[in-house]
């Protein structure tokens, strides 16, 4: 069992003029490959902070005082920040924290956008209003994986009409992705399979039209400058040397950008955006909220990341558009093997897409369960009361939870839920419960329920 992400005993604090807010107090989480893990909780529980910590996007007044976040078993994402955090009794040094963040940014260049990416809540502000959609998608591809782009274009210069005809024949016979890859490799046409497959998979075109498009993918002509750039990038090197001169640099990037736009069109058609060739040349304000969120998801998926964190992606959208995006997420899960962390305050939304859910309260995960168990057999008192508080379409009685979310500057001693818990015991008021596996895959951090 390979874990994409392992979070152990994560503690994060924020230092402000009004006091120290303990946003995360020992979060444990293991994310399997290819699963959608939901993080549910109300405001102030720390779910957004968890997402930001994994991405390393914390502000300079935050400190990771304890714990680690391991990506793919070996890369600790929080090492820098943890080393800069003040130890017991030390005063918080904001300069030190700034330095640590700068160091983290430098080190994370190779994983942010490639291995992990994030989708935020508000699609209006996640996209740059003055750049075309295609540019924003292509930008992220060029920044991290320009080589496949160059290979694609080079492959188009080398491939012949007959090769393409052969590939179409293979596709019609029902060959899968691997077979096409092998064929392309054998003919030294690495980079063509990607393009052919994405055209073939479109379901808004007729077969004849698809064939026509595929057959037109050959005999691409390249100018000598383009050839230079593509060969250099295609062999794995960056645009460097004499190509770094300002005007020439721009021209070189444009060569890659053109190909990037084509790849962006393919990505958008995979995400079921209508008229993708027109959309890539449009600006964000010309599109609706649902479209924008699809584009943000396209940017997040552009480089085939291992982990995508979605922070309330549908909270700003209408119900019908939300249904579209959730359907899309389900579809993506089956297509790719990416793991998702889906953060939301709405348990019903999570029940639509997630495999497992973790319920957070006051900076800790208090229950992890498979999706059906959360509603049919909730163990933790908070989960139970939360499920009873959600109004359903049948208009059943709902019950609120008495009391308020604790002030994160003074988290209650013992189990942080004990002031509001109807089943609290003496033990709950003095000690912090740890996660116990009560049944297969169902963990709970509660003394009365966990034992």
């Amino acid at each position, binding site marked *: 069992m390979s874990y994409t992400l392992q979070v152990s005993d994560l503690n994060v604090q924020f230092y402000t003029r009004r006091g120290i807010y303990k946003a995360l107090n020992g979060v444990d989480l293991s994310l399997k490959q290819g699963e959608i893990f939901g993080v549910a909780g109300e405001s102030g529980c720390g779910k957004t902070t968890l997402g930001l910590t994994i991405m390393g996007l914390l502000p300079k007044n935050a400190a990771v005082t304890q714990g680690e976040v391991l990506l793919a078993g070996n890369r600790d994402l929080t090492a820098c920040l943890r080393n800069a955090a003040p130890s017991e009794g030390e005063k918080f040094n904001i300069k030190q924290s700034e330095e640590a963040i700068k160091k983290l940014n430098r080190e994370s260049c190779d994983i942010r956008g490639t291995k992990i990416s994030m989708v935020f809540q508000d699609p209006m502000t996640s996209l740059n209003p003055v750049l075309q959609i295609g540019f924003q998608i292509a930008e992220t591809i060029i920044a991290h994986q320009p080589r496949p782009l160059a290979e694609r274009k080079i492959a188009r210069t080398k491939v012949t009409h007959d090769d393409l005809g052969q590939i179409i024949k293979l596709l019609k016979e029902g060959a899968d992705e691997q077979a096409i890859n092998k064929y392309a490799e054998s003919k030294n046409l690495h980079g063509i399979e990607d393009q052919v497959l994405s055209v073939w998979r479109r379901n808004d075109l007729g077969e004849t039209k698809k064939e*026509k498009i595929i057959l037109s993918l050959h005999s691409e002509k390249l100018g000598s400058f383009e050839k230079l750039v593509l060969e250099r990038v295609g062999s794995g090197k960056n645009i460097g040397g004499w190509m770094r001169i300002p005007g020439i640099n721009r021209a070189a990037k444009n060569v890659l950008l053109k190909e990037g736009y084509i790849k962006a069109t393919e990505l958008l058609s995979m995400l079921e955006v209508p008229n993708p060739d027109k959309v890539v040349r449009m600006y964000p304000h010309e599109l609706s909220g649902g479209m924008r969120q699809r584009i943000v998801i396209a940017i997040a998926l552009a480089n085939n990341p291992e982990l995508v964190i979605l922070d309330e992606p549908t909270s700003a959208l*209408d119900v019908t558009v939300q249904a579209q995006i959730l359907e899309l997420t389900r579809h993506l899960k089956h297509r790719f093997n990416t793991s998702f962390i889906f953060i939301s305050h709405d348990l*019903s*939304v999570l029940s639509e897409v997630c495999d497992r859910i973790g319920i957070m309260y006051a900076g800790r995960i208090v229950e992890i369960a498979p999706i059906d168990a959360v509603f049919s057999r909730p163990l933790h008192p908070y989960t139970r009361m939360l499920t009873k508080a959600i109004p*359903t*379409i049948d208009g059943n009685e709902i019950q*609120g939870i008495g009391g308020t979310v604790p002030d994160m500057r003074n988290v209650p001693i013992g189990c942080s839920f004990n002031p509001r818990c109807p089943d609290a015991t003496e033990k709950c008021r003095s000690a912090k419960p740890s996660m116990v596996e009560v049944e297969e895959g169902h963990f709970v951090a509660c003394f009365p329920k966990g034992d």
Partner: protein
Amino acid sequence: MLIATRQLVKHFPIKGESAFGKSLTLKAVEGVNLQVREGEVVGIVGESGSGKTTLGRMLLGLLKPTAGQIFFDIPDEVLQQYDACIANKDLGKAAEIEKQYSIFSKNRGRQREIRKKTNIVFQDPYSSLDPRLNILDIIMEPIVATGYLRSKEAVQRCMELLDEVGLPGDFAYRYPHELSGGQRQRVALARGIATLPKFLVLDEPTSALDVSVQAQVLALLRKIREKYNIGMVLITHNIAVISYMADQVNVMYAGKIVEIGQKKDVILKPIHPYNIALISAVPGKAVKGTKIILKGDTPNLVDPPGGCSFHPRCPVSFNRCGWSASEVVSDLKYLIEDKYPDRFKEGTNVSINMSGDVIITNADLISVKELISLEKKWTKSLAAIDDVSETNEGVKLKLSPCIVPEMYPQDNRLVACLHYAPL
């Protein structure tokens, strides 16, 4: 009838460019007839762009409608009389009734009365309370402004109200920024019922709150409604909340009401295609059946679709629903060029002629007819093609005229869908 609207319309003029110098308007609300009885909770459900917020503002007199009437506290007989006058074109008598019962009357005294008997609770607990006033002043505002009570009694009433909404008395001297979202919303509610109004508009009262807090606030709303018999209009996009609170439910789409009825009918057994899709889109296991995923987005209100505004996205639209020639043309173009290019020659052109029919040049009649019968099930606009014939212009497609649906009675409710129009 506590509140009754007749043919309420609100258009917002849009500044900026427009083709041919015509000024553009955003048609936010089109022809809404809404009725609220005393003590009844009427829910208005809709997504963004449905016009529900604009409607809510108009019901309280905060926005002046472009056309239509809003009556407050009008006896049923007078309302019937008014409807009769309009039907018989007796405009004089109608104007008299309007003058007496309209919510926009110029009479100062009547305005005061209306303000005393109506109020509103907004969605955002952070901007609906003046950050410079303390809670006591905030709650006292409607009491003092309408002259409901004098100063000493007013303060007393405020303390009672704080107790009523479950806040401790010492909150009176606190400031909004010291309170949580749920507490602020309770203060807004206390202010809303301060003058014991007969009518309260609640604009997304719990959308900005956490689930557990929302449950508390909704329970409080129910309690208050039962205790004081206040008629409410609850505007929200959250269908579960409507299901919990409302008696009568109105579903809005693109500025019009598409289905009105009792909660058990409209929500549990929806019949309007939009409503069906909306209910099925609600997340959670409680909603049974397969999800209907609508394509496309909420309509452009500056240039709304003709006929029934839902027809471009409706899974069951047919020929009279309002397909325009341009919609048919764009669908045909896509089919001919992208999906079935092998059936047609190069140079086939689709256009609209002077009389509004669709003309296809450089194509033969048989292939066009075949295409239409093949794709009719999936491409809904083709259903609007009444007649296909060969003329000297090319293949001519005549389209059905479209009808704007009215509210038709069906199954204990009113629905604005041509499927249910009487034949």
